[in-house]
């Protein structure tokens, strides 16, 4: 880690270690939004670290995204970072408060009087009801246009609350002739940016969540006595946890590669790798750490589920492992076996991989 990354990492971990406790998580499950925690995040400026003006890279922000998973932060910090990243790259105005990102693919964007009117329904919008601003990414005439809509915009016809398995809001938002507050072209080197960068933030957060449940299981294995000794002394337990630790180490390596590639050409290849590796590692971490915790870990009282329920949710957000693996596989098959090794050893930005050849041909 560079010094900047270490600094960010230390301060964010300190903040969450202190502030995201059992009380916050239990209240969140009961529907109470942790306002004061968001205030602390804003005071630290963490929600805008990815803005172009800050000069920070995705690799710099990686510790924050990981900490969201590790401490199960019940706030739209990842979404806000992503939304603000795109808005700032488009040169749109800065905005405090929670934000979220919407793929405009399901919406109709009609040009009118120098702006766009958005209509249609966006499903499973993360933290829709908490967002002060929506950044909606639309492909118009082959170019990406970032549109912003404030929470108070009269064109938002309805927000129907929904949730993922971890009780995080995933809302259905209907826009009716919604006049964008701002819009601008944004230069994104990606065919499907919301899916790609959404997958990236979930992959990184999953590594944090997996690391956290693994740490809990290690601790439990060393103190839980059965058959007269800590269960961590049993080889069966040791090997299960060793295997998971290896999976998590691999996922950490993969997400760090994805953060390095983010924003550049072909980032999707590294993001796909990260999502596949992190998804697999996290789901196995959830299974094994529950096994190690026994019945205690299956209770609502135990903290374990705050991590595992997030893992089960995040793994399938912004594309399943198989859908991402399929993209990598199809592209690799098209390149053929003789290109495999040269491609593995080449810088990702220089690869000639096609993510979606049908679209490119038309």
């Amino acid at each position, binding site marked *: *880690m560079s010094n900047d990354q270490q600094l960010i990492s230390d301060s964010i971990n300190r903040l969450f270690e202190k502030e995201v406790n059992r009380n916050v998580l239990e209240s969140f499950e009961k529907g109470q939004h942790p306002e004061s925690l968001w205030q602390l995040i804003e005071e630290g400026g963490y929600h805008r670290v990815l803005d172009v003006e800050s000069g920070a890279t995705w690799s710099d922000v990686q510790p924050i995204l990981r900490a969201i998973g590790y401490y199960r932060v019940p706030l739209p910090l990842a979404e806000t970072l992503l939304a603000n990243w795109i808005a700032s790259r488009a040169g749109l105005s800065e905005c405090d408060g929670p934000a979220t990102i919407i793929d405009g693919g399901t919406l109709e964007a009609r040009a009118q009087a120098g702006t766009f009117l958005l209509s249609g329904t966006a499903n499973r919008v993360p933290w829709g009801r908490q967002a002060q601003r929506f950044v909606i990414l639309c492909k118009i005439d082959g170019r990406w246009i970032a549109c912003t809509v404030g929470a108070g915009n009269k064109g938002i016809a309805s927000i129907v609350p929904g949730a993922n398995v971890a009780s995080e809001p995933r809302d259905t938002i209907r826009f009716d002739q919604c006049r964008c507050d701002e819009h601008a072209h944004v230069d994104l080197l990606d065919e499907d940016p919301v899916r790609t960068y959404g997958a990236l933030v979930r992959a990184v957060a999953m590594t944090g969540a997996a*690391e956290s449940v*693994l*740490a809990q299981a*290690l601790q439990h*294995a*060393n103190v839980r006595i059965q058959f007269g000794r800590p269960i*961590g*002394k049993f*080889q069966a*337990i*040791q*090997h299960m*946890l*060793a*295997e998971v*630790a*290896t*999976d*998590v*180490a*691999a996922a*950490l*390596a*993969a997400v*760090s*590669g994805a953060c*390095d590639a983010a924003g550049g050409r072909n980032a999707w290849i590294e993001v*796909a*790798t990260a999502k*596949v*590796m992190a998804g697999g590692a996290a789901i196995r971490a959830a299974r094994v750490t529950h096994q190690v915790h026994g019945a205690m870990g299956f209770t609502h009282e135990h903290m374990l589920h705050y991590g595992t329920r997030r893992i089960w949710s995040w793994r399938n957000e912004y594309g399943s*492992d*198989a859908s*991402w*693996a*399929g*993209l*990598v*596989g*199809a*592209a*690799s*098959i*098209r*390149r*053929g*076996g*003789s290109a*495999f*090794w040269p491609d*593995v*050893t080449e810088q990702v930005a220089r690869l000639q991989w096609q993510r979606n050849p049908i679209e490119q041909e038309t």
Partner: protein
Amino acid sequence: MAFIHIPPAVLPPECEELREEVRAFLSKEMPHHRQKKEAAFSFFDPAFSRKLGERGWLGMTWPKQYGGHERSFLERYVVLEELLAVDAPIAAHWVADRQSGDQLIRFGTEEMRTTIVPGIARGEVYFCVGMSEPDAGSDLAGIRSRAERVPEGWRLNGTKIWNSAHHAHYMIALVRTQPAGDSRHAGLSQLLIDLTTPGITIRPILNLRGYVNFNEVHFNDVILPADCLLGKEGAGWKQVSTELGFERSGPERYLSSIELLMQMLNSASPDNERQAVALGRLVCEARTLRRMSIGLTAMFVRREDPGVISAMVKDMGTTFEQRIPEMAAELFDVELGDPASPLAQLAAITIQNAPSFSLRGGSREVLRGMIAKGMGLR
């Protein structure tokens, strides 16, 4: 859990220049070896080893005064991964270059360094490992080979197994020189053994495919010179741990089946979703393993203790190598070994070699025990 974070590392530009040199060399040399591939998964070819020596690609990190080239571990890494990616015939020099030469430089006498090490770097002198015994596999501290001090030097009795002695000039053997005290790790020493010494019998062992892959070497009152002791008497366990560190850290721990993966990419259809998903996963794993492996090598360069990372990369890498032939059988409707299908032929060889991947250099279970211990269990 800092110990599972591998600091990212990027290969410096000189590595990429070197890669081009190696590729140019291999594109000229490798076609001659294609037809020999059938024989075994790592082919013995002294002429090829000597050519690598001439290029300066053996003993790359060793001091020049001992015939080395004083290049970085990362440069060595690049040469290794390029050789492994085309399944080059590197069996002859492999053990000597990877671990024995380093042991001699680190623990050997000045005479060993000046007379033997330069020959390794030239690709002319070959070594085999001398660790496992018939009754001491994963439990290496249980070895029984015993060397006693005699007026001429040492008298050695015992048996070493699973080594490539049939191709080697020397063995570095872990033997007991003192009875085990409170710790079985005490009283062990490493000896350098010239395999032409009288009293040594090398008995070949056929692997499951019927090829000579390794041997059982018997030592019957073998008299060795006093100066064959490597390092300190009684420090063998510590020295062998250093040696195993080299054995567990390289790109060879995930590339054994890579040619079959390439063949699968040639035979698959991008429109076959089943194949695309499964092969995509393997490609993701390969990319991740390489990243981990380079990160690990960079830790060696910075002289950081990799802790559990070496064991993790080997465990994951060998599992990956074993899954490739299994996936070939699952994804392609061919009968393994069918002469009509190059994929089926390669898959047949690979799946039969695969059981050894998670045994050599420390079994999977031993590695997982090490990882668990490193994580604070036990």
